[in-house]
């Protein structure tokens, strides 16, 4: 076990000091913060500038509390028209009877003006109309937008981190194999120690990335006020995401190491990894689809099938309410898949990593003694 820890520590200490790691971490943190602030900046409340000529201001704010209204008084119609044409005001109420505009008025503002005007006149005549009460009989959709947003960000983050770390494992395996340093390493370490240490070390780096992203995202969302729209149960979701990331990473990284151990040159990593990257891409596409339709049949079924479940299930959990038993069953399946892959991948790695030269065939490695 000591050997595993030494290998893991080397991976962490050498990677964490590289410019690529530090810059990558900073850039993702800035991006995540930007994403957290973006909705607040882009969802500016509607704001209107209105003018009056010989009229009372209408109580528009009471009818549309989300919008901003600025009123300006004009001495006569001519001045008001000029302001309209200059684009200084959106509409001008004249004598309480007509509205001057520059071209067509937005339907939202025109409906608002008409209905508030009616209400004021009726109120003046002593007629009061109670406002209509709105009652939803469907599911609680208050958090739908926020849930979808979180799920989309999550898919992207999980996919990028998974792909990045798995490729790092593969490159690391080939680096050791191509430089033959693996011969010295394996005269003092067991193959599983070297493989395990590498996967653990790079996994820790992935976790550092993920935790940073989640922490920056949550803090920035709280700061920007976006967190007010978040559904309840965020701590549980974060814990789930971390767990699912670890499972998915363990699965793909082990297979990545096994495949990479078949080749002896860095240039061959890409091609030997192609089947695995395709599976990761496919997982990503299904998970992305699930953000749109988290309760659909495809998302539900695939969220039980390893290794797809490692990305689809956390996305479903973010995008909708998933019963605990479903998450549990899916996770148990993924854990079994990870254990199977660990056994299989370690065997291939052990047999292939010392056989330098031409690219090995998976079948030959499995058949060999």
């Amino acid at each position: 076990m000591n050997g595993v820890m030494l290998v893991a520590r080397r991976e962490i200490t050498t990677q964490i000091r590289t410019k690529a790691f530090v810059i990558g971490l900073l850039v993702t943190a800035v991006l995540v913060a930007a994403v957290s602030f973006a909705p607040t900046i882009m969802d500016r409340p509607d704001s209107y500038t209105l003018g009056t000529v010989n009229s009372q201001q209408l109580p528009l704010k009471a009818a549309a509390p989300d919008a901003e209204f600025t009123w300006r008084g004009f001495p006569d119609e001519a001045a008001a028209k000029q302001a309209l044409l200059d684009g200084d005001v959106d509409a001008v109420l004249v004598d309480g009877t007509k509205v001057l505009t520059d071209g067509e008025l937005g339907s939202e503002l025109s409906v608002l003006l008409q209905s508030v005007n009616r209400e004021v006149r009726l109120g003046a005549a002593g007629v009061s109309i109670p406002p209509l009460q709105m009652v939803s009989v469907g599911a609680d959709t208050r958090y739908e937008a926020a849930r979808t947003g979180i799920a989309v960000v999550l898919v992207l983050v999980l996919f990028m981190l998974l792909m990045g770390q798995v490729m790092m494992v593969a490159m690391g395996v080939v680096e050791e194999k191509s430089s033959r340093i693996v011969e010295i390493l394996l005269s003092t370490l067991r193959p599983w120690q070297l493989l395990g240490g590498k996967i653990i070390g790079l996994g820790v780096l992935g976790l550092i990335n993920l935790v940073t992203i989640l922490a920056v995202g949550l803090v920035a969302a709280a700061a920007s006020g976006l967190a007010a729209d978040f559904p309840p149960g965020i701590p549980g979701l974060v814990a789930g995401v971390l767990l699912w990331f670890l499972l998915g990473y363990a699965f793909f990284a082990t297979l990545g190491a096994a495949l990479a151990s078949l080749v002896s040159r860095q240039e061959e990593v890409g091609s030997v990894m192609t089947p695995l990257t395709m599976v990761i891409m496919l997982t990503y596409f299904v998970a992305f689809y699930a953000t749109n339709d988290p309760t659909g049949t495809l998302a539900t079924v695939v969220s039980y099938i390893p290794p797809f479940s490692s990305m689809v299930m956390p996305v479903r959990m973010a995008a909708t309410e998933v019963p605990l038993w479903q998450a549990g069953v899916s996770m148990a399946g993924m854990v079994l898949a990870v254990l199977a892959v660990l056994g299989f991948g370690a065997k291939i790695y052990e047999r292939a990593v010392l056989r330098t030269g031409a690219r090995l065939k998976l079948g030959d490695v499995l058949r060999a003694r």
Partner: protein
Amino acid sequence: MLEISELRKRFGGGPGASEGKVALDGISFAVRPGEMFGFVGANGAGKTTTMRIVMGVLQADSGSVSWEDRPLAYDDRRRFGYMPEERGLYQKMRVGEQIEYFGRLHGLGQQAAKKATDDLLERLGLTERRGDAVQTLSLGNQQRVQLAVALVHDPEVLVLDEPFSGLDPIAVDALATALQERCRSGVPVIFSSHQLELVERLCDSVGIVAAGRMVATGTVADLRAAESNTLRVVVRDPAPGWADGLPGAVTATDGKHVLLADGERDDQEILRRAMKAGHVEHFGVERPTLTEIFKEAVT
């Protein structure tokens, strides 16, 4: 004592398959504590394969390697020092950290690994490069780091595949000195090399491999003596016909006669005749160089 006996290895083809290439065909030799063993042979003769089997990175089809009269085990190998044929270092890792890392992997504690690294860097003249990435070092300096990696844990046995290849004469001397020091402290050292003069100068024993077999093994002196049987006599300005009736052939250049005699002969009679004929400049049995022995053995 490290004993290698009857190692056989075939590459390619599955178990029981008839095709495939025979790499080792029953290699045997032994290296005693404090002995420097030179492993020579043509490319592809089986030196690297033998060393990889000793280090456990390759499995022999049959045969055994034993250390101190027991089969060599994984835990014993952890106390060996190994330099593979193709140099392996983490190019982007710093020199000092790399040596320390291998010290830790071989079981040294943090303090011990650091101290051993400092000592080695000092001895190999790399102290100033401690914090540099390996890839910024010259080939010769990288080779020194490679040696440091093999030596950091004060190994009980050294197995070095072509440690001198690609080094300039000064680096060769530095490396040779380092190896001789280890050897004097009782560590058996096996190294392979194509630089036969170097092997002749450094090694107590030599093993010559050809096509997976050990064709000659023994001390350098023994090998030379076994191969040597030619008497060489050089006489300056002798009387003509002085060597008539003596075995062997005479060649004359610039008044200098050289007699080379093989096989049955009376050395004392030849010496008497030569002294009578002129001024004897050289009289002795030809000692073939290791290069000559090697060429003889592998052809």
